[in-house]
């Protein structure tokens, strides 16, 4: 953290403030009863800007942005953020490694988000659609990454494999509709 602050103090301070603010005030929290909840219009602007910023951020800033994304998905997906998966698909389909990495992080974030969603048939249906739409692309990305030797490729592969892990966990825990 200190290294990040030395190299880029404004971004460091800004992203840490945003992370704390989103954690405390995206929804009313029992632990932060005095916190002013972020207004809906500000939330909408925040959602619109988050993924492009995530895709273009340096690694250390991105590490702070991912928990923000996770938090927002927990509360807002899919009802208030129906375009999230469209953006994720766009990122996964680009020919630019940082954007693809951001797409992988988005996919991992949505897999994680479903771990904490209600265990009902509707969630299972939603998650199955996400898998059907994105995991073929994920497999293609993994097939390319395993042939690369760079640290970045290794990190991307790690993120991708974590998505498989979480997806497996979710699919084994959510009930199949009709049963």
């Amino acid at each position: 953290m200190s290294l990040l602050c030395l190299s880029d103090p404004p971004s460091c301070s800004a992203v840490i403030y945003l992370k704390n603010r989103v954690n405390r005030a995206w929804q009313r929290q029992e632990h932060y009863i005095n916190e002013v909840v972020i207004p809906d219009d500000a939330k909408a602007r925040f959602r619109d800007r988050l993924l492009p910023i995530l895709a273009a951020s340096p690694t250390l800033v991105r590490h702070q942005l991912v928990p923000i994304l996770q938090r927002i998905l927990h509360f807002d997906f899919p009802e208030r953020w129906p375009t999230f998966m469209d953006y994720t698909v766009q990122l996964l389909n680009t020919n630019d490694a940082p954007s693809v990495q951001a797409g992988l992080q988005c996919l991992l974030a949505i897999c994680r988000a479903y771990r904490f969603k209600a265990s009902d048939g509707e969630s299972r249906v939603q998650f199955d659609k996400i898998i059907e739409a994105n995991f073929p692309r994920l497999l293609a990305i993994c097939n390319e990454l395993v042939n690369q030797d760079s640290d970045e490729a290794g990190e991307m592969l790690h993120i991708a494999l974590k998505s498989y892990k979480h997806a497996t966990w979710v699919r084994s825990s959510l009930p199949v509709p009709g049963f």
Partner: protein
Amino acid sequence: MDASTVRSWLVSTADADADVRRRAELELKKVSGGLIVIVVVVPSPSLIVAFLRHGSAVGPWVDKTMSSPEMLTIPLRVQGEQHPGFTDVLLDIIQAEQNASIQLQGTPTPNDLRSDGCVSVVPL
């Protein structure tokens, strides 16, 4: 409040001069939500207690040394943004630091995809 001003305050929080840091932190507290001081005139201590119970004060301490018996200074911690749009300004700052060449610009072009429709990950 604009991004360049807030950015300069953020930079100043890492300044070697303690006074510069303090001033910057104070400015940031004003816009981001921090300790503010409200002076209230109250006729009796019981009203103070009532105010603290029903107001938004998070701490019950009252600095009597700073004021007359009739005028008490009650610090309240106000959480959240004092200026709407502060989160937008912070996003502006983060965005401004980025390399514009790798920002996501709308939908990917056909050149971003391989002929078989799969992703081509550029070696890093």
